[in-house]
């Protein structure tokens, strides 16, 4: 049978990210997918050699526009590990809250994009309407809508006062009601299910061998969440990974829907337990040493490998972002699927190519 090569991306109506695939198709079936990335490589790892390690948190935050806060947090945690800085407990709790707010807005963004990808524009608009409420909370507490800029080495820049906490908790109740309605549609609606169930199945063994992370891995039945490592306030707030066993696109959607409510729960617990006190400590000196720090981003585990030699510039700043680890799995599930399902499968790994290339 004749084979055709169809170029897919880097510009494609359903793709917000510049990934290019050459799809080898036979009739409607995809036989092979050859990826090429590198359209948005910015050389941020190289930049660490010329930027002061204190300033570099701004760069680290801008690796990704969506999981920005957790990038900044992971960078700060890594530097704090190297320099043995004890961050005040209140700052640790605030980081946890902002991290979970960023997870909420990232997951809502993705759920909207997925609805948009399958042509469900109305659901897309409503998901983003709810996301806008989260962004309003973020802007009021940090000053930025997606680039928080509130994390620094040694603590956080801003505090949330008691009145604001009460107000946010009230708003979260509203948001939860909205999200219950939306997830009911996302998980139970016939047309959504028909589009997602059984599409892009990744088995548990494949997910493990291909080194998947985050919701991609949990949707295939591996219960692993880096928040279980107990970084930030997660040694006091316990997190049970949300898993599904089907491993298809529907399972990945369901895991993310479940994580929305888990994040809300974590924010409530954190606000209930948040101790009083300062939110930052003074940082002096330059780092010497090496660390590998892992945290859980909305898209999965992020790995920061930092090496410092006692100057104010880092010797090596290496980031392995979650999408980088999930790309092999994407290439694994594409062969054998229908051409029309390709956008959905690519979307369900929640690709962030700017993250991947840094």
């Amino acid at each position, binding site marked *: 049978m004749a084979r055709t090569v169809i170029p897919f991306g880097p510009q494609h109506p359903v793709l917000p990210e510049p990934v290019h695939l050459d799809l080898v198709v036979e009739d409607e079936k995809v036989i092979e997918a050859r990826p090429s990335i590198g359209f948005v490589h910015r050389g941020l790892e190289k930049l660490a050699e010329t*930027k002061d390690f204190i*300033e*570099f948190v*701004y*760069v680290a935050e*801008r690796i990704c526009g969506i999981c920005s806060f957790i990038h900044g947090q992971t960078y700060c945690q890594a530097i704090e590990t190297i320099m043995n800085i004890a961050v005040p407990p209140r700052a640790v709790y605030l980081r946890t809250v902002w991290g979970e707010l960023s997870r909420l807005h990232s997951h809502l963004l993705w759920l909207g994009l997925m609805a948009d990808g399958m042509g*469900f524009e*109305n*659901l897309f608009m*409503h998901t983003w*309407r709810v996301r*806008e409420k989260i962004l*309003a909370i973020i*802007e*009021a*507490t940090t*000053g*930025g809508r997606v*680039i928080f*800029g509130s994390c620094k080495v040694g603590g956080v*820049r*801003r505090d949330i006062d008691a009145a604001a906490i009460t107000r946010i908790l009230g708003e979260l109740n509203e948001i939860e009601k909205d999200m219950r*309605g939306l997830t*009911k*549609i996302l998980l*139970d*609606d*016939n047309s959504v299910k028909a589009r997602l169930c059984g599409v892009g199945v990744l088995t548990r063994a494949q997910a493990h061998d291909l080194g998947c992370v985050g919701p991609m891995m949990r949707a295939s039945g591996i219960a692993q969440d880096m928040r279980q490592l107990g970084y930030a306030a997660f040694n006091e707030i316990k997190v049970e990974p949300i898993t599904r066993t089907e491993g298809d696109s529907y399972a990945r959607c369901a895991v993310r829907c479940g994580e929305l409510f888990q994040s809300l729960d974590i924010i409530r617990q954190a606000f209930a337990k948040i101790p009083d006190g300062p939110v930052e400590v003074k940082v002096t000196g330059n780092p010497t040493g090496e660390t590998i720090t892992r945290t859980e981003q909305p898209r999965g585990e992020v790995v920061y490998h930092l090496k410092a030699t006692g100057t104010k510039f880092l010797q090596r700043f290496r980031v392995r972002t979650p999408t980088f680890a999930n790309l092999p799995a994407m290439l694994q599930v594409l062969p054998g699927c229908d051409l029309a399902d390709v956008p959905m499968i690519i979307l369900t790994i929640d690709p962030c190519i700017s993250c991947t290339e840094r």
Partner: protein
Amino acid sequence: MAYFEMTKLALKWAMTKPATSQYPFVPRQPVAGSRGRLVFTKDNCIYCNVCAKKCPTDALVVNRKEKKWIIDQLRCITCGYCVEVCPKKSLSMDTGHDRVAVTRDHEIH
């Protein structure tokens, strides 16, 4: 299995006020504490150059001799680091997001 859930939501929103606003015609209400735009107050500036040294994107240049404070708005990422390090508090953050830089022209104060 859910039937007509989306219809219910759509009908509800067909009858309520839209969540969006007519943005350029109806200005956005500024959010307190938002990092909108960097504001320079000339009066107490001592041209110490700390802001320019700390700026992560090199958007600021301070010329002490000519007493000039220069900003490239397109490079500025409104991170607020300069506001934090300014010893004389002559820099502040405005909550307005109204003006958007489109050229590399340098604003000289």
